[in-house]
């Protein structure tokens, strides 16, 4: 814990800023019911009330408090993106490592399957599948995790391939260790650091992707508060010069920037590059 803090003190200002922002979002996620002045789905006043002392950021198209919905939105928007990214990493990472360890037939089948899935633009594919299975939170997570696991698969496979040829893996094989043992104790510890660095970037991508889908009305379904759909529902206000709909959009942008700053710093550290 102490070493983490001291390394953070030496980090560039952008990374410190990023960590601070991420912490703020976590607080908003955990303490949403305490922080929000009103409930997530309570209809309180008229539609599109202006900013006032009762409704700090006004109300939305159905008369719900904007500020409360933005705070609750952190749970839904960030939570769904996090669950999707985790699932994508478990599935894609595991299959990628299995493909690298087993090689041959299994590797060929999995890799060609991933090639085909990646040949279709992700947004189009997601729209196609969501037409068929319908838009619910669970199908959203499953569809996007499947699409995103292809990218994780490629990375995990290529990193694991450099580990598989090592002598200690060969030794473990001659000892007669099983597939799962080799993955768990020989491969995973050696591939985890590039995968963790990739996690931040993939999360940003998934987060933006789900926000875009929600904005199109095909992601998180009402009445759950979600930043993407909040922009869509209140977009008419912009034509009157009201910036309220931009606040949830900037909440998305701010978190992505913060994560990018931290990942940038971590990658810079990991690559061992010195500043010129």
């Amino acid at each position: 814990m102490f070493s983490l803090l001291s390394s953070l003190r030496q980090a560039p200002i952008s990374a410190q800023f990023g960590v601070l922002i991420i912490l703020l979002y976590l607080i908003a996620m955990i303490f949403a019911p305490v922080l929000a002045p009103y409930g997530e789905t309570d209809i309180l006043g008229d539609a599109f009330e202006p900013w006032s002392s009762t409704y700090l950021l006004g109300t939305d198209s159905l008369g719900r408090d904007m500020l409360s919905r933005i705070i609750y939105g952190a749970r839904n928007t960030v939570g769904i993106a996090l669950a999707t990214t985790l699932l994508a990493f478990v599935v894609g990472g595991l299959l990628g490592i299995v493909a690298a360890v087993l090689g041959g037939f299994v590797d060929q089948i999995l890799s060609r399957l991933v090639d085909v899935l990646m040949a279709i633009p992700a947004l189009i594919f997601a729209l196609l599948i969501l037409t068929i299975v319908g838009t619910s939170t669970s199908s959203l997570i499953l569809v996007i995790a499947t699409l995103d696991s292809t990218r994780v698969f490629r990375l995990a496979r290529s990193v694991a391939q450099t580990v598989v040829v090592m002598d200690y893996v060969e030794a473990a094989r001659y000892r007669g260790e099983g597939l799962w043992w080799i993955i768990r104790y020989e491969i995973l510890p050696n591939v985890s650091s590039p995968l963790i660095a990739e996690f931040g970037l993939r999360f940003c991508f998934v987060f933006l992707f789900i926000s875009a889908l929600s904005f199109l009305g095909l992601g998180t379904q009402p009445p759950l508060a979600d930043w993407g759909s909040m922009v869509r529902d209140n977009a008419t206000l912009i034509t009157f010069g009201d910036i309220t709909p931009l606040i949830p959009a900037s909440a998305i942008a701010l978190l992505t920037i913060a994560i990018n700053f931290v990942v940038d710093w971590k990658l810079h550290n990991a690559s061992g590059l010195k500043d010129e």
Partner: protein
Amino acid sequence: MNSILLMTLKRLGLGIITLFIVSLIIFSAVEILPGDLAQEILGQSATPETVAAFRQELGLNQPPVTRYIAWLGSMVQGDFGHSLANGRPISELITARFSNTLFLAAYAALIAVPLALTLGVLAALYRNSWFDRIANISTLSSISFPEFFIAYILILFFSVNNSLFPSLANISVEMSLSEQLYRTMLPAITLTLVVVAHMMRMTRASIINVLASPYVEMARMKGMSPARVIVFHALPNALAPIINVIALNLAYLVVGVVVVEVVFVYPGLGQLLVDSVSKRDITVVQAASLIFAGTFILLNLIADILSILSNPRLLNPR
């Protein structure tokens, strides 16, 4: 020369195979639909007779393989079938919209590519200066912005606060080119901002990569100006990754227009796709997905071929 032709043909063959598999996926995606497509569309209140008649009309009572071959055959001939929502022929819906989408993507590309190359070369030339730092931070930020955020900020500044450009990009065939360009200015700028960052970073990185090589040092030592060194010595050798990333971004443009089209109510294919998804108009979604996927695969193919052409070493893999 022969090897180039052979390579192109090989890639083209691979592309066609990919497209074939993609069409198979798009077609069979509907097959895994739980329940019956006809029942799904007509609703629970439909009588068995109407459902049977509708199944007959859609050809659902034939085996999937027969239907797939018939579907693919008519797709290749440009007949996309009929919309389930309003019964109009899909090719009629799609043709004008697809050319609108291509128009917008091309418009954005014409602004974005020269801008990204210039900025990238400048950032490489003045690296670690304030210009480079600002460019670095602002590109990192612009990657992080959702497209609709950029779009609404532009609308707020350019059409609400100062009415310079219209916030709705409703173009039609009768308009003159300049009118069309004027109306689609804001969507084009939005798309430009989205793709420029990636291309610029790649240009900068690949030029800096080459700057360490001996021939660049030689050029410098004989007294060439830094700008000349970069444009005439470093850039040609850094071209392969740059071309690749440009083509990938063009492919992204054709697909990424979906959100931008919805924001600006632009009559393009993306808007049609989103509308059809919410109406669950599956035949239109299939046709639009196939067209998008085809364009995407084609542009990736061109990226592959161009980057091999720009770096002859890739022609003879060891």
